[in-house]
């Protein structure tokens, strides 16, 4: 077993892992602040990818350039989803909350197919294509971009949540909404922001994904299950947990895919979810 091969597997595992991580971070943020799992998260990815593609095909804007706009667009979308839907179910029981995002998932998937058709699309030649060679190891540029982009986004998010006043308010609202509101924090606005930022993270991931993955109505499903596992593994609500878990999952699936079976490379990842929630329900870094 050559070192070069192992290195190659690790590198590409990391590349995908950072994408899973970024998607998971968006998910865990929403959960951490308001205890709601967004079952339509995969569809957010899908929307981000379609937005990137449409910008590319209509105005010729490369995904690298459209990234901030897609993130901004998804941020707004997150806000809209919160105000139109989520806010109304927060006061209800958990069932309603689950149904709400579940319905949203079905709606968005069917909607995408309705509007764009079931065909898949691909961004042809983005700027982020090609490879960089380090000796014998090949680093595909889109994967490097994914690592860089996701890391940057995570750092920015971290700074936002832990170093700004908005972040303080977010955390306060997450910890104790009632107390927070007596302190004058607009809890509803914080929730909306959580949705917006969570969606924006996904927008960044979607934009990075569009450099090398194909786009179709069900593309969300491909990534979101892995993101759920990452969130659980890292600990619901923990940002750095989601990051580490996402990366671990990226590595795990590449290694299993190579050494064991490529058709079943995700099954151990799914089983990992069960193992984690059974043995250590708060994951690696979650709050208890």
């Amino acid at each position: 077993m050559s070192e070069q091969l192992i290195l190659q597997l690790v590198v590409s595992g990391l590349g995908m892992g950072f994408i899973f991580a970024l998607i998971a971070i968006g998910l865990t943020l929403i959960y951490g602040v308001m205890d709601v799992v967004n079952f339509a998260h995969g569809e957010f990815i899908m929307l981000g990818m379609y937005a990137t593609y449409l910008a590319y095909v209509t105005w010729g804007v490369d995904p690298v350039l459209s990234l901030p706009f897609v993130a901004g667009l998804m941020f707004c979308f997150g806000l809209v989803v919160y105000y139109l839907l989520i806010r109304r179910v927060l006061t209800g029981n958990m069932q309603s909350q689950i149904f709400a995002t579940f319905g949203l998932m079905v709606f968005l998937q069917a909607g995408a197919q309705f509007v764009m058709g079931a065909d898949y699309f691909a961004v042809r030649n983005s700027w982020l294509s090609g490879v960089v060679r380090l000796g014998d190891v090949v680093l595909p540029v889109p994967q490097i971009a994914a690592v860089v982009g996701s890391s940057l986004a995570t750092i920015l998010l971290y700074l936002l949540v832990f170093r700004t006043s908005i972040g303080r308010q977010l955390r306060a609202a997450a910890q104790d909404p009632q107390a927070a509101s007596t302190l004058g924090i607009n809890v509803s606005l914080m929730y909306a922001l959580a949705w917006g930022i969570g969606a924006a993270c996904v927008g960044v991931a979607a934009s990075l994904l569009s450099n090398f993955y194909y786009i179709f109505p069900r593309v969300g499903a491909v990534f979101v299950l892995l993101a759920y596992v990452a969130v659980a593994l890292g600990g619901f609500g923990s940002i750095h947990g989601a990051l580490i878990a996402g990366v671990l999952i990226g590595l795990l699936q590449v290694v299993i895919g190579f050494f064991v079976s490529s058709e079943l490379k995700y099954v151990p990842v799914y089983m990992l979810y069960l193992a984690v929630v059974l043995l250590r329900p708060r994951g690696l870094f979650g709050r208890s």
Partner: protein
Amino acid sequence: MSFTRRRFSLAAGSALAFAAKPAFAADPVKVGALYPLSGQVAKSGEDTLNGIRLAVDIINKKYPNLKMPLAADEGLPGLGGAPIELIAADHQGSPETGAAEAERLIVQSKVVALVGAFHSSVAATSSQVAERMGVPYISGESEATPLTERGYRWFFRTTPSSRTQAKDFFTFLRDINKTHNNSVKSIAVVHESTLWGQEFAKSVDAYFKEFPEFQKSIFVGYQQGTADVTSEVQKLIAAKPDAVFHASYDAEAILFARTYKQYGFNPQGIMAIGASFGSSAFRDALGADANYFFVREHWSRDLAARNPLVGEVAKMYRERYGKDMDGTPARAFTAMMVLGDAINHAKSRDPEKIRDALAATDIKGDALIMPWEGVKFDKTGQNILTRGIFVQTLDGTPKMVWPADFAAAKLVWPRPAWR
């Protein structure tokens, strides 16, 4: 009370109808078509159905300059010029829905024959219905080998099966070895994990005995919804095969091709079953990197050079439906023509007579738009005169390169390095 009265008037009405209207020979002959018109492959389903619609139109109207049976006359001359009425149904890719729609078409719409179904799993269940109810079923594009191994009387298939197509890959490589110094020794297979991909892998596996000069290298399967294909490609790189057979749908074809380039994976040749690696979507997405992939095709526009009929029909298809014809609509078109030919020969709407006429089909290759030697069914209902061609993308255009006597361009082997 009102129930029985309604029943009676219905019966009376239909009796009157029968009495009043003599059964004109020119009443349309109803044929049912089962295709996926919604869901993931809706576009392909629609394109395929259009191939059938084109055939029906050619049969029904006068096209004296098309040198194929039934084109010059209006309708079916054997039935007094009766037109074919096509009734389409959407099976949504579900075997159960397909069976239900088949039944509805037979019982309620009273079709004399069925055409379908694109998906082999749907063809299986819907033709089972046809078999039980004694209605001929012809498939132009469902390739799963077991479909003609069920001992059915009413099922006919014009397209080659998956197994036959797999053999073409070996025949092709044997030919390559003759002119390229026996350079191909090991073969790897990459396949997706639905029925189609698994079937192909099985068929290829079975042929190594018949072609002992080749060794089996690695077989890599993958799930359709895979996020990346690094581990798959790395396995291929480690196995170092000389040639790679691919069974992938369009979307993953792009993913694989890109990943191959990223890692510099360059076997002597990569050849695919199904149109994926030669499709316009593939070429759009990959640009110059789409070159040198081979596709085992059923049909190519280049065939027009040997038979102008091909060009004329392709042109009609393009004009009406705004898309280029490819192998699947071409095969569906052919299946419909074969059915029309059989109904015409049967001179009857009786399904049993149509079935017998189908079994006796004997159409020569030049009356077809396919590269086949003709259409003739064996006892299992399989057309045994099919022929495959290989197409290679050169300079951004797929060109027919094999068999040699059909070639529109010279094939390039081995693949040049990635640029």
